[in-house]
């Protein structure tokens, strides 16, 4: 077949998975990233109709706010043999940077996607390549575990932490310190989870928190029963494996909170995936 059909011969010579491009196409790389200092390297190989091999190598520095950052590479006529994306700088963990490789027409706002070549999360040890990488969604990986220091509210105000736009969180544990003023009253702190509008989890602590006392409240997924060391720590349960979307919140609600009461030292652990925005 190849001997009397030059096009088929060319195709065989170039390999079995190459894409023939007319030269009007664009290779688009889209990155969604939350890690600092990340720079991506996009490289690949091409074969022109005369049999000449060429390579390309470009950089993309994605933003750190999980919004889409794109890079458009004009293609030339010939066969696209391979494309690979690797980490050029920075060290995103699994779930912090997601890459999508597409072929289409036009660029910028006029880009019309035609083919998806590869899509996956990328880290210092995991490349995304075509051919080779499976098409995977941003939530398919193991995610990364992060410790986050939250906002310290003003006196008599409550804690509220919001899942960032483009992120998905599994809340593993949450800790905050609550100091009561000398005003005599039994405070009843609770941790609430809401979807931005509707509260769906309400976990009141199992003690009365009196005046002039400091207690560290600790909530963790997997605890079956609340308990206390009766001095400075109170432990409460969180729902297990709860995946929280962007705009969902982790809040305190403190019964009988007084003007001089203070929440502080807000720290929590989440498993994070990137959904992108």
């Amino acid at each position: 077949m190849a001997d009397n059909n030059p096009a088929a011969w060319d195709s065989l010579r170039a390999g079995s998975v190459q894409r023939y491009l007319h030269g009007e196409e664009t290779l688009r790389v889209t990155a969604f990233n939350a890690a600092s200092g990340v720079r991506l390297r996009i490289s690949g190989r091409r074969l022109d109709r005369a049999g000449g091999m060429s390579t390309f190598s470009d950089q993309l520095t994605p933003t750190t706010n999980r919004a889409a950052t794109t890079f458009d590479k004009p293609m030339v006529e010939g066969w696209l043999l391979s494309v690979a994306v690797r980490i050029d700088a920075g060290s995103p963990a699994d779930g912090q940077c997601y890459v999508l490789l597409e072929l289409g027409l036009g660029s910028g706002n006029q880009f019309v996607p035609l083919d998806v070549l590869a899509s996956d999360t990328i880290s210092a040890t995991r490349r995304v390549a075509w051919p080779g990488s499976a098409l995977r969604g941003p939530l398919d990986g193991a995610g990364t575990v992060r410790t986050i220091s939250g906002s310290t509210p003003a006196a008599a105000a409550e804690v509220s932490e919001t899942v960032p736009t483009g992120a998905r969180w599994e809340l593993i544990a949450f800790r905050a310190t609550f100091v009561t003023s000398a005003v005599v009253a039994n405070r009843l702190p609770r941790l609430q989870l809401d979807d931005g509008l509707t509260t769906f989890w309400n976990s009141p602590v199992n003690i009365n928190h009196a005046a002039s006392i400091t207690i560290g409240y600790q909530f963790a997924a997997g605890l079956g029963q609340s308990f206390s060391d009766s001095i400075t720590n109170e432990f409460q349960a969180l729902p297990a494996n709860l995946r929280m979307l962007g705009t969902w919140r982790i809040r305190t609600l403190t019964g009988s909170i007084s003007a001089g009461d203070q929440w502080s030292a807000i720290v929590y652990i989440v498993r994070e995936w990137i959904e992108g925005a």
Partner: protein
Amino acid sequence: MLKCNVCGGTYEPVLADGSQYFHACAPLSVVELRDALEKKTVSLRPAQQAQLDAATADDQKTPVAADQLSRVDRVLASLVVERPNKRDENIAGAGAPGQPAPVKRETLGTTKV
């Protein structure tokens, strides 16, 4: 460290791992809500106001023991009332190509502390 000019919360805009932190103001606490209602800087929805009025009347008619939460406080604790100028630093989508992503609600901004 930044201080939110709306809620007074303080936070680091960049966390120890180098990632961005997006502050969003908490809803009003019971103390803040009671104060805001007195100063009329917030208003409740009619159904919420009716609930509060009924609790106020009940507290006056049959006061609860000193060590118990008043009915009014129970109603206030059940309400999730956002601050009128609530800030939310989260992005509202990716925005136009080449442009910074738009922030949801910047309102009164922050002060370095």
